[in-house]
Each structure stands twice: as C-alpha cells, then as structure tokens.
C-alpha cells in the first residue's frame, strides 16, 4: 500500500524543477558509511485486503470482552460506551487535526477542551482542570511534581492501598526527579491515620482504593494540610455521581484514570489522564490549558493559554515535558458526560454500587470464598480471598466465560478483585456466582 500520489511524470518533473537528476541525487550529500546498503529486512507491502485479513486473524487470536462477561477492574472498567460518543469524537476533523497552535482554525477542538475542563471541575469540585494527560498513572506523577514544586519538599506519602501500578510509575519517575514514595499503611484494606511531618510534599490517597474500598480521605487530607503538604486524591470519575467529590474532601489536586468516561478498553490505552487543582496551583499545572478570550473584534474565542509554563516556551524550566497529550480521549469524555448529564451520572453510580453490593453478598456466601475486608464499604469493586489459589480460580472462572481480576497482593496474600459496572445485569452476576462456586470448590 502507498499513500504518496506521485506519478512517474510527477517525480521526473519535480526532480528537474529542483535541479536533481534522480531520487538518489536528493541523498547525494549523505555520508556513504551511514547509508543502509540493503533493503530493510521486512516483508513486502500488503494490499488493504491482505492486510485486513491478517489483522482480523490477529484480532481473532484474542478473547475480547464481547466473548466473556467482564467483571475485571484494577483501573480499567467495562462501562457502556454509548454510540454517540465515538460518532462525535471519531469525526475526522477532530482526529486528523494537530495540537491547536493556530486557534482560528481549531476553535472546534479548543471549545470542546474548554467544555471538558469545565465538566472536570464540576466532577471534582476543584477550580481548574488541564486539557488532559496520558493516563491515570502518569497524571499522578505530574500531580506529585506539582506538589514538589509548590512545597519545595521531596517526601511523598502514598497509601499502600493505592494501585501497585501507581507505585511503580512514581518510583520510575521519582528516580529522575529525586523522590521515592513512602507507604501509608493499610493493613485493614484502608489507609491508617498517619503522622505527616513538615518535610512532606504530598499525601496521596486513592479513594475508592485499589481494593474498591472507601477511604477516610478527609481525615488524611486534614493531616496533610496541618503540615502544609498538598493533599492528592486519585479518584474514579464515575464514583462522584454518588460519592463526595475530591474538592469537598479537602483534596488540593485530584487525578484519575479517565478511561471510564467513554473510552474503550483498548488493552490499556489510549486512556485519559485527568488532573484538577485549586487556582493557587494553576501556574504549576502540567500540559495544555484552554482559556476563553476575545478576538480583534471582541468576539469570544478560545486559545491555549498560560503557555509560559510549557516546554516549547520555558524549555528546561517548564512545569512538565508534555507536548502531545490525549486530546481525543478528552473530547470523547466531554461527549460522554454530556450524554449522562447529572441525572445519568447519579443513576450510573447508584447502579454500579448496588450491583457490586449484590454480587459481593452472593460471592461471600460461597464456600471457599470470602470478602477480604468484611464490613468495609466499597464502591463498584471489592476484594475476595479464596481458599484455592486465586490464579486457578481466575482461570477456571474465565473458562466458564467470566473475567475477574486482577489479583493484587495485600499483606503478602493475594486478593482477587471483582468489579461490577452498570453494564452487568442480575443474570450475569448470578452466572458469575455459579461459576465461582464451581471454581472455588474444585
């Protein structure tokens, strides 16, 4: 396949216009010792028909969430994506555009991002959102960098009940930026009250946490504020349809994995990194921010603003190195949130919680299965202990058509996560319970 439109005549005439005798002549100034003297060791190109046949075969070697009932979570969830979301975000005027450096030609994406920022502020109860980051884990890293810059300190306290992937990402980036996250214990499946000294930059709590449990977030954030540290909450953007939002709990910075806002599972990406903060930290925000302004004739319009924070202006002094972010996923999230509206968001969150509670009760009653944290309230995800090896239980349940997981260690023992979205119905939950009964007993 080839998308360059040149005819042989075009090539000859264009070369002549440039004063070049051949294609090779265009490269005549390259040092010969760096030129590859052979073809790349790749197959020959394919027609579209042949390529799509091969891609279909690859896709068919995967078992996808249309072929099993998805109760898996751990940061990615099988929420329903209404048709309107990608009918709109998938319009090629959006997806084939570049970062809106020429605002007059990019008002569409700029206005969509302004609306995205507005809705994220509503969800979080905070004052300012940026226009997206890569994903939840890297959004947390950026939030921690904001806290380090704001406080001039480098100690980071992170709950042991935060997703291990967040721990791993913070450790990776901390090696460059000069911090190492330290644990807030969570022996009972929720973070414990902890002493925050005045050398701490940030207290980070995931609420609901990796086990799905609801955290005493306000109390932890109060102790952060008593030490003038930043309070950072990792939240679930759909949970705030029923749970108090980060701003109300006292979080200064809220970050999230925004996959749940209208994005497909995509085997882990592209997803959406959400970050929101208070206005006091606006100049420490990473990445693109859209602002409303006026044009030469006084008409309202939108531009990328506060660019003096960014890498293309500030270079080595920038707040972040973000250039390309996840704009298209933010546009999808905007469409999705408009589709839900306040009533839809509340109903969706209510259904997730009620269905998860129903599933948890039924699973807890099975022999060989128990809730890992009995009596601890959760949102849409909960953790199980199984008498049988969790990995074997997970495999046998999948053989029967149900995906649960991931398996997350807690205090040296595996906890098997089960999450329930609005997409699951009572029959499917009952089916999971039956499958688990067989798997846990065998």
């Amino acid at each position, binding site marked *: 396949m080839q998308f*360059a439109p040149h005819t042989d005549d075009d090539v000859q005439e264009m070369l002549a216009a440039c004063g070049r005798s051949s294609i090779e002549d265009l490269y005549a100034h390259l040092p010969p010792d760096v030129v590859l003297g052979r073809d790349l060791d790749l197959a020959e190109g*394919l027609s579209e028909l042949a390529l799509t046949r091969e891609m279909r075969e690859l896709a068919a070697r995967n078992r996808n969430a249309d072929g099993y009932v998805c109760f898996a979570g751990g940061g990615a969830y099988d929420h329903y994506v209404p048709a309107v979301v990608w009918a709109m975000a998938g319009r090629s005027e959006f997806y084939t555009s570049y970062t809106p450096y020429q605002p007059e030609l990019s008002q569409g994406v700029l206005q969509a991002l302004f609306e995205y920022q*507005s809705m994220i502020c509503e969800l979080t109860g905070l004052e300012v959102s940026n226009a997206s980051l890569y994903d939840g884990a890297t959004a947390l890293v950026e939030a921690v960098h904001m806290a380090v810059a704001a406080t001039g300190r480098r100690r980071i306290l992170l709950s042991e009940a935060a997703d291990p992937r967040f721990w791993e990402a913070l450790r990776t980036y901390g090696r460059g930026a000069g911090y190492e996250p330290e644990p807030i214990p969570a022996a009972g499946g929720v973070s414990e009250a902890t002493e925050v000294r005045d050398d701490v930059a940030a207290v980070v709590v995931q609420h609901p946490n990796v086990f799905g449990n609801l955290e005493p977030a306000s109390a932890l954030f109060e102790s952060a504020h008593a030490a003038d540290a930043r309070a950072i909450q990792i939240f679930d953007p759909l949970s705030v349809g029923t749970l108090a939002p980060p701003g109300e709990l006292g979080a200064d910075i809220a970050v999230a994995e925004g996959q749940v806002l209208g994005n497909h599972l995509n085997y882990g990406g592209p997803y959406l990194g959400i970050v929101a903060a208070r206005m006091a930290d606006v100049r420490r925000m990473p990445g693109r921010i859209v602002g409303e302004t006026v044009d030469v004739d006084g008409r309202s319009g939108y531009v990328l603003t506060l660019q003096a924070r960014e890498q293309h202006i500030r*270079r080595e002094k920038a707040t972040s190195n973000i250039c390309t972010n996840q704009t298209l996923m933010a546009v999808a999230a905007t469409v999705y949130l408009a589709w839900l509206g306040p009533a839809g968001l509340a109903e969706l969150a209510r259904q997730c919680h009620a269905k998860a509670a129903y599933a948890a009760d039924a699973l807890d009653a099975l022999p060989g299965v128990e809730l890992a944290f009995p009596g601890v309230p959760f949102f849409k995800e909960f953790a199980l202990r199984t008498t049988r090896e969790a990995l074997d239980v997970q495999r046998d349940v999948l053989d029967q058509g149900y995906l649960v997981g991931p398996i997350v260690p807690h205090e040296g023992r595996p906890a098997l996560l089960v999450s329930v979205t609005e997409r699951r119905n009572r029959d499917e939950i009952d089916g999971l319970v039956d499958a688990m009964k067989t798997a846990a007993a065998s």
Partner: protein
Amino acid sequence: MTGAPVRRDGPPLPSTLSALSRPGRRAYSLPELDVPDAPVPPEHARATPPALPEVGERDIVRHFTRLSQINYGIDTGFYPLGSCSMKYNPKMAEAVASYPGFARLHPHQPEDSVQGALELLYRLERALCEITGMARATLQPPAGASGELTGLLIMRAYHAKQGKPRSKIVIPDSAHGTNPASVTLAGYRVVQVPSDARGLVDLGQLAKIVDEDVAGLMLTNPNTLGLFEEEIVGIAEAMHRVGALLYYDGANLNAIIGRVRPGDMGFDIVHMNTHKTFATPHGGGGPGAGPVAVSAALEPFLPAPVVAFDPDAGRYSWDADRPDSIGRVHGFHGNFGILVRAFAYVFAHGRDGLKAVGERAVLNANYLAQAVAEAYPPAFEGRPMHEFVATASGLKKHGIRAMDVAKRLIDLGFHPSTVYFPLIVEEAMMIEPTETESRETLDAFAAAMLQAAREAVEDPDLLHDAPRSTPVGRLDEARAARELKLRW
C-alpha cells in the same frame, strides 16, 4: 490592525453545552436497576450533583458536529506544520483498530487470552528495531516526549550501573522544547551546543563542552532545520570516546526511513513518534505513542514488562522479571490502540513502501523549497531533507511578520506552516509537506505563499487583518493569560 470590525464569512461559534442546558432534559438511557438498591454510606455521599449540562442527544450531535466543522484536520486540507509530519492517516488503520479483538481487550486479561495482541506488539517491536538498527524496544511510552524521558531514564540507569553517574546532557540550540524539559525531569542539567553557519552542530563548540560528566547528546537527524548532520559519525565518536551516549530524537525519522538507520549512525537510544513516521492520527493533540528502541547494551534497562516469545511453545508472554529495568512508564501497556494503527501502517507499506515514503517526503520538501524561495529564501544553504526552514524576514520592511503570512494563508485555504521555530531563525517558517501531498497541492500552496508576499507590498492590510474567513479573528492571547477564564 484596522479599527473597524472585519466582515467574517464564517458563522459565529456555537453556544456552549452549558448554555444549551435545560433542567430535566436528558440524553442518557439505562436499564432499570434489577438488584436491590444499596446507597453508599451517608458519610461518603455527595450532597449536590455536579452541574453537568442537561441536554438531549440531538443537541449533542449538532453541537459536536458544528465544532468539528470549525476544526481543520488533514482530511480538510494541506497541513504543512514543520516538525509535525502531518501526513494522511489511512482509513484502514482506523478500521482495524476498532476491531473488538483489539478495542475490547481488558488490560488485565491473562496472557493466554491475548496471544494475538502480544504477537502484534512483538512483531511491531521487531520491525521498529529493524527500521532503527537497534536491538530491542519498549512500546510503553504514550507520546514522543514520554519516550524522550524514558530514554533519558535508561541513560541514567546505564551510567549508574557503570558506577559513574553523570550530570549533563548536551542539546543543540535548534532542539524541540521537549528535549530540555525531559532532561530536567530526568535529573540532568542542559548544556546547549550552538549551530554553526551551516545550521549544523558546531563540532568545535561540541568538543569544548564534552567531558566525562556528560551523560549523552540528544540529536535530531535530519535536524530541526531539515538538514542532515553530515558529520554524525564524528559526533558519535566524540561522545562515545568519553563514555557518553547518543540519543536520537525520532521526530524526523520520516526523512531517512529505509535508507539510513540511527543505529548505523552510532545512536544508542531512539524514540519514534508514531503520529509522525507511521501516520497514526494526532487527535488534535494526542493520543500518540513514543516507542523507544535501544542498543543491546541498554536492553536490560528498558521499562518492564516487555513481550517475550518462546518459539518452541509458539507462545507470547509478558516478561516482567527484569531487575535492571527503569520500571513502568505508563499505567498499562502504552497506547495499544495507536500501536495497532502503527502496525497496520508498517506492514501495509513493507520494505519498499517505507523507503518510498522517505523519498517522496524529501522530494516534496525540495520541490516546495525551490518554489517559494524567491520570496521566502531558505534560512540555511544546505540541501533540505523532508522539511525546510525559510524566512519571511524580507517582508519585515513592509511591516509584515511571519505570523501575518501564516494568517493570510488561512484565508487562502491552507493551514499555515510552523512559524517562529526553530528559535534560532529570524521570522522562521518551517514547512514540511510530507509524502502524501500531490504536486498540484504543493503548486497551489506555493502560489498562495507568493501571493501573500505580493500582497505584503500591495495591500498589507489583507495580511494584518487575516484571517477573515474563520469564525474568529486573531485572538488576544495576552488577555487569555491575564484574565484567566478556564471553565464555564
């Protein structure tokens, strides 16, 4: 600027969704709850619902359709943003990425249930290593800048393992802003090396800067002026002599694909931008993907996990047991959906097709450079590769800046080039046509640029007042930053 309002042909901007909102109007539908209701504990409950807009689905569709209509994309027209490689995004890549066998995979699925996905990642990694002349690659970084930081963290881990941590990274003065920003995040200090009169790295200056405290040099080749660093072998030797590493910023890989490989030039680390070289759509600012390929010596430091293949069992798996790994750089496996598109692009083109991509890109840039040179001479004498930097400084005496030309091009039906970058060129206009544009498009664009240059003399207000054909004219960016209005 002229005082009187300029007539605009475009209709005004649509209202915001917030302005369309009416209490009680809704778009969503959900099935009835079929299990007992179970409210969250009151101490955790939200008191007031978020004030999301209340609109119907038809409102949403008209709103976003209208927004899309006032947004310029590659599918709308020519997009010659230098340094961004805005080439046509094949529809077949969009189609295959939407197969449920890719789009509906949960990232925590067991390996045996995702063998097709793992094979795709493994084969893409092998192809990217062949294209770059490297040993292994990570596909985790979700964008080019993320790839840069990943590469620098690998560099850092390598030097630490050698027992010789270093503190400085050398960067040319023409480099992208992400380079120095990534350097700081990796805990290094930036040392800038100037360009010489040819627009290439000044070897004499480089020799003065390089010592055993330098961890590495970040270089784009062809560089951001569109010129090939012809002394690259000497540069690589100078770096390696002091134990420093050479980092290839793959922003301009499109120019040399299939013809020159970074590994053969002496580079140790390479990042690629899939939205540039492999035509994955840029999405108005992402999602991208920034795979990083490294030499054999650096393989142990790659982010974990990487895909492993057991040829005896014919089975793919995630290899997370990598003790020297820098760790995870993304929450899951990177922007998989984008990598599917890149795979489709690479294997659709194959060895001949990829080489032709670079050739046509270079041909188009050379052709366009000579077509506009009379009014916009090249900033440097050297032979352009896939892009060129011209200067509009000749129009300054008429009170016309590069930005005025850019805005006039909008009224003449084109997306402008990159302007004022690289920072070292006065009134820079950085133009990258890419291989997917026809000669007719290039001729029309060149004619528009020359027309703007004539108008600069004959009717400069056409340029000062531009653009007129858009829903808004030039926007007050200073006011946007001063009177922050960042939400409804």
